[in-house]
């Protein structure tokens, strides 16, 4: 006769499978962190080129995230609050960058923002070129990482009772005021976590960026180049440094955003 147990056989199987998965994610990351040649790691840390490239990566992804906030929050708000023709289509479009191969995304961006298309020429006439420039890196990072921010913000907006916004209107606030006073504070946690995800995703982007801008070299491209020209031994220290910086930033920001109140 079966007895009632705190943990069933099913729970045991699930637990084992879960642990396998978590090990699969963490083991390679931590292995690479601790297996780099210490001597080469130290010299790499002092290399101007490596530090400049990591700095560029963090900065470019930050610009991409800020652009994402300016254009992405309004879209997320529309998707969360209004019903309109083609809404489902718009929601599907937003997820598109996640599923297309990122090198293909890079080619696609090049065809629009390159000098052969009018849009690229317009920007070029304003002095903004996307080929081999920081602007190009920001563009590529934005394209592939926007869904993370928009979807998180959309969830945040959707979780707010629209009656809170309506009451604020009756109390004398204009729609703009209501957005800043009620909507943004109540969805701040979703927005912050979406922005962190977008930033992190931007930092890790390789495929789209490498098509638009091999130079100036962002860290993932630098890792690839060193691997190709000098082999694993010299690529590894750069990977370790980038990984360590990413993990530290990611955990710090997550801890900070956990402190934000949930409503």
């Amino acid at each position, binding site marked *: 006769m079966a007895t009632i147990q705190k943990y069933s056989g099913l729970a045991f199987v699930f637990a084992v499978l879960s642990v396998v998965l978590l090990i699969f994610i963490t083991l390679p990351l931590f292995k690479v962190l601790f297996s780099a040649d210490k001597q080469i790691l130290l010299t790499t840390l002092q290399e101007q080129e490596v530090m400049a490239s990591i700095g560029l990566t963090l900065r470019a992804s930050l610009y991409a995230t800020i652009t994402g906030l300016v254009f992405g929050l309004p879209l997320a708000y529309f998707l969360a609050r209004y019903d309109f023709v083609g809404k489902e289509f718009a929601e599907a479009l937003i997820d598109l960058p996640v599923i297309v191969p990122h090198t293909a995304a890079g080619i696609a961006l090049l065809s629009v923002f390159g000098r052969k298309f009018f849009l690229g020429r317009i920007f070029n006439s304003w002095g903004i070129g996307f080929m081999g420039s920081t602007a190009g890196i920001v563009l590529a990072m934005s394209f592939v990482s926007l869904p993370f921010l928009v979807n998180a913000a959309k969830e945040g907006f959707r979780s707010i*009772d629209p*009656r*809170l916004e*309506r*009451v*604020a*209107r*009756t*109390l*004398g*606030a*204009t729609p703009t*005021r209501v957005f800043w*006073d*009620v909507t943004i*504070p*109540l969805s701040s946690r979703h927005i912050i976590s979406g922005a962190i995800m977008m930033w992190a995703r931007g930092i890790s982007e390789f495929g789209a960026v490498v098509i638009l801008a091999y130079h100036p070299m962002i860290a993932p491209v630098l890792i690839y180049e060193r691997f190709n020209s000098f082999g694993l031994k010299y690529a590894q220290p750069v990977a370790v440094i980038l990984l360590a910086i990413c993990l530290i930033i990611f955990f710090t920001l997550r801890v900070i955003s956990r402190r934000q*109140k949930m*409503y």
Partner: protein
Amino acid sequence: MLDICGLNLRLDDFNLRDINLKVRAGEYYIILGPTGSGKTVLLEALAGLRPIDSGQILFSGQDVTGLPPEERNIGMVYQDYALFPHLTVKENIAYGLKKRKMGESQWIEAQIGRLGEFLNIDHLMKRYPINLSGGEKQRVALARALAIKPQLLLLDEPLSALDRQSKRRIQGELRRIHKELEQTILHITHDMEEALSLGDKVAVMEGGKIVQAGTLTEVFQKPVNPFVAGFVGHDNIFNARVGKRNGEKVVLVDKISGVAAAPELEFSVSAIDVPAGSNGFLLIPAEGIILSTSPIQSSARNLFFATVISLEKVGIITHVTLDMGIPIVATITSNSAQDMKIQSGCCLYAACKATSLHFFSPPPTPRSL
């Protein structure tokens, strides 16, 4: 004060059709209707939160149909309070005062203090809504709406999320707001008892239309159609007044038929909170009536002689229509109806406990302005 003329509003799955309503300044107006009859949509249209397709909304003769909510002077209280969770009680109440730039910070401070005292929430000012009970939240929501001194206060089912005790207390607050602040109130509900204990006037809504509007007496005594009758009259309601017998307050209802040994029926009702001479309504729940073939000795002090007019068996319960000087419906189990061999024409005793009866005294109609 409020004048709605021919309002039409079309939504995807629902329409408000040709709504006409007049609310006078200082009036407590109840809109009564079942869930889905369009009450909340109507309130939101009045607040300017939903555009209307045709018709006019006038506040004190001024056309506000096209004005956005922030330019109409209305206060809104939702059923689930809709307090801003990221602001303290004080900041919630201050919100409207600040947005409308109603005065200097000192004046705002004083205003909040007065409201806090009036609604007995001054000890809660620093708390966040999540740490308040339902009744407290509702008082804060009322304070926030009243702070902007609205011409019209809109209440969307303000009592339905509350437990019995808080409900009574908030009802008391609403009466005070109406009387002491002379606030014009439009209150929507599906609960007839709220209408009876608070309203001056009532409009009944069904399927996006107002099917009947008038004073409580008109609507409860002369429902215009079976829907209204079914909605407002599922229990026994009679015009009544408070009298005195042996120093105790009793409720008197005029007889309209039967042997007239006495012209009126006298009921003992517990907890009458108005003085003798007050007029109102007596509600006798159909389930609260005990029938017997011989006079019963029990705690039920109200015992009447009655004639059975008709019976209607609905599964395990039976509705018995009786004449005891007033027509009254009693609901008993079909088993006991059978045991007592009740049939039309037979004579019975009907009893009801003083605690199962309710006397409602509507607030006196304010002078018209």
